[in-house]
């Protein structure tokens, strides 16, 4: 007797209701799930339509793209459409300021060098990332300032530029060699001259002499290499904005670390001084600091010493940014568990070594997204230097409307500049978010 085999046969699943699938399902679920949501959707869509169509009408459909002066634009469309030729005529000024046109390649080259300098940081198999990163922060500025400023250079200045140039060559060579062979540049060099197995002292001597020789060559190059002076008065536009925020962030990082350490240390005088400094600069608006430095810094310096307006603005931005950076660093330090300090102390490390080797690396890793955020903030804040009369993006945009041909053209350059800022800041903030995700491993429970 065979019993019929009882096998569980699941019925094939019915297809999901048509209304929950595909575009319709998505729309129903995400846009019209309840009466209130229907209302919200309709209102939201209407508001979006009104804003977007008004902006597009003005900026694209009614806009004038070819004209020789604002008068022509006004004759064509009045004020209902944008007059873009004015912005186009001033485009290069908006980017480079009044920098002499045939010297602009120096700015481009300077930024290209920076890109080439930091690209290895994102490449795999490059081992000397710390050294490359530090050199980009500490050494690159010398080369860049000569690129941008040009002019006469004394012995020390030439040496610094030569050193910077040499470092750049080293960065390129080392990242190529490390990617190709996986060995450091020094090892490869020694292998080339057949000193791979020599004793360390001899190896060190070889390396030292070759570095010195390279420095001499670099010095000769720098000595022969002359760039005409382009004073900071001619700097402007996006270039100036990037320079100010770049210097601000680079300076504020080490200064902020020192201030934060000072604020947390046990010595009352130092801690009070750091706290007062941080709180003072954080509690007043950047614009008052800028005003103070433009009007008062010259009074503080010895009679007859002149300080460039740009330098004054940069000093103000640096101090302001350091105070903020100090608080970011302090936050990062506070996030390090006590155990780390104790472990470092148990290993017999002193204050400086435990800070530099154990605490700071961890704290900096936590802080990277916040630092990027701070950089975005600083980048936006540099618009304030226009109020003290530096020709940054914003003031350059104003200058368009003062050109006799484009007299009164005011909204269009502003619109363009806003767009430019948005592109930069949005890209950076997206990068910061992705960085946050990438770094956010292991530490969270």
């Amino acid at each position, binding site marked *: 007797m065979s019993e019929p085999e009882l096998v569980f046969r699941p019925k094939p699943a019915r297809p999901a209701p048509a209304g929950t699938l595909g575009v319709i399902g*998505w729309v129903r679920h*995400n*846009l019209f*799930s309840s009466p209130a*949501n229907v209302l*919200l*959707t309709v209102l*939201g*869509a209407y*508001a*979006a339509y009104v804003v977007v169509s008004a902006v597009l009408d003005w900026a694209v459909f009614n806009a004038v793209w070819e004209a020789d002066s604002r008068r022509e634009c006004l004759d064509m469309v009045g004020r209902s459409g944008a007059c873009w030729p004015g912005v186009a005529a001033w485009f290069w000024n908006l980017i480079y300021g009044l920098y002499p046109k045939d010297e602009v390649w120096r700015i481009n080259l300077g930024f290209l060098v920076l890109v080439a300098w930091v690209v290895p940081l994102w490449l795999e198999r490059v081992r000397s990332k710390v050294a490359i990163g530090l050199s980009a922060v500490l050494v690159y500025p010398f080369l860049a300032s000569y690129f941008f400023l040009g002019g006469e250079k004394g012995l020390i200045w030439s040496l610094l530029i030569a050193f910077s140039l040499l470092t750049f060559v080293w960065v390129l060579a080392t990242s190529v060699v490390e990617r190709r062979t996986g060995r450091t540049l020094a090892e490869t060099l020694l292998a080339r001259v057949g000193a791979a197995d020599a004793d360390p002292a001899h190896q060190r001597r070889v390396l030292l002499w070759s570095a010195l020789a390279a420095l001499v060559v670099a010095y000769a190059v720098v000595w022969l290499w002359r760039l005409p002076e382009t004073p900071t008065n001619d700097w402007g536009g996006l270039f100036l904005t990037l320079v100010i925020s770049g210097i601000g962030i680079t300076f504020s990082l080490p200064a902020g670390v020192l201030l934060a350490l000072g604020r947390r240390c*046990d*010595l*009352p*005088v*130092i801690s009070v*001084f750091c706290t007062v400094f941080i*709180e*003072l600069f*954080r*509690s*007043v*608006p*950047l*614009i*008052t600091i800028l*005003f*103070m430095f433009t*009007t*008062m810094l*010259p*009074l*503080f*310096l*010895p*009679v007859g010493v002149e300080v460039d307006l740009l330098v004054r603005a940069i000093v103000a931005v640096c101090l302001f940014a350091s105070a903020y950076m100090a608080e970011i660093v302090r936050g990062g330090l506070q996030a390090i568990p006590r155990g780390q300090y104790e472990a470092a102390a148990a290993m017999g490390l002193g204050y400086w070594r435990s800070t530099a080797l154990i605490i700071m690396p961890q704290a900096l890793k936590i802080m990277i997204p916040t630092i990027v955020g701070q950089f*975005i903030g600083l980048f*936006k*804040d540099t*618009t*304030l230097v*226009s*109020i003290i009369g530096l020709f940054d993006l*914003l003031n350059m945009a104003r200058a368009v409307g003062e050109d006799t041909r484009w007299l009164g053209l*005011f*909204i269009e350059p*502003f619109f363009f*500049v*806003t767009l430019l*800022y*948005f592109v930069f*800041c*949005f890209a950076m*903030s997206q990068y910061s978010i992705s960085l946050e995700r990438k770094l956010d491993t292991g530490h969270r429970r």
Partner: protein
Amino acid sequence: MLALPRSSRRAGGLIGWLNNAHVRAILYQVLTAAAIVLLGWYLVHNTVANLDARGMSVGFGFLDASAGFGISFTLIPYQEGDTYSRVFLVGIANTLLVAIISIILATVLGLIIGLARLSDNWLIRTLSRTYIEILRNTPLLLQIIAWFFGVFNLLPRPRDSLSWLDVFALNNRGFYMPAPLPGPGFEFVIAAFVLAVAFAVGLKRWAHRRQDATGQIFPALPVGFAAIVFVPLAVFWVLGAPLAWEMPELRGFNYQGGLSVPPSFCALVVALSVYTSCFIAENVRSGIQSVSKGQHEAAASLNLKPSWTMRLIILPQALRVIIPPTISQYLNVTKNSSLAIAIGFPDLVSVWMNTSLNQSGQAIPIVAMTMAFYCAASLTVSLIMNQYNRRVMLKER
């Protein structure tokens, strides 16, 4: 290995003395203090020399001089012939007004946008995210200018004002509203209001204590609210409504009478609130998201009403995350109000650090007074908010 440092320390002398941690601590501090004092002295010395060389005088004497320029919006009475010290006060009052109103609006707006960011409606979620991203990633200064020219400068002229019931009017000269003119006996209404508020606070305390002791719930909130609204109203009617309104009227060039704020004020407040609301919205979102799902589930398993869950379980925990960054946003509003200079609203920086400095040439006292005001304001706000923060924080166990 160990013997070496010990012997060198025993050897005494300068090295050994310097290796003593206490001595070193004091030495560092003395050096720092000396450096600061020297720097200060150096700056003062240079300043005196510079002022001497340029034949410039410094002092607070100019404060009593007549300023001689008009100010477009003043919260406290001001005339062209008034002194510079009056200008300073006018600037402070205007700055505070902008900051306070913007903070309130930014909080409300930030809360709404933050909740919209968590909405289950895709369009609303996307729109609020776009709103946040666009506004967060463009400089505030540009936004202020955009609001001013894109919106408030495009409003109709006074003759074609947008008006509501002939009570409020909005045109490109500003926003006009009736001014209250309290009659005799109005002070009693105010007194009644103060008393009602005190009563409501007392009631809340009493209800709380009774609930702790007996578990009985007393609807303190609605009762207190009713007292605050109806008691002063009753007094007001009993006294025969001692309050008149001065209506703004279109006379000559523009509306006269009533209360009014200029377009630059509106643009500044709107720009500040909108810009700050993005950051507050993000705080709200991350605060609410930081409360773990288990808390919702635990509350539901206790059969708490959804509104109670929000009020008693989620909000107190979310607030702990929301409040500290929001405090710094409030401080930022106060500082950012200094950007008023770009559209000519007479705040402290614009009217004092720019116009007055330019007209009187007295850089040092003017800059010092401005910085002193901002420091004081910031410290006060952070003191108050830290106090509040501490109270919220206490709920953590």
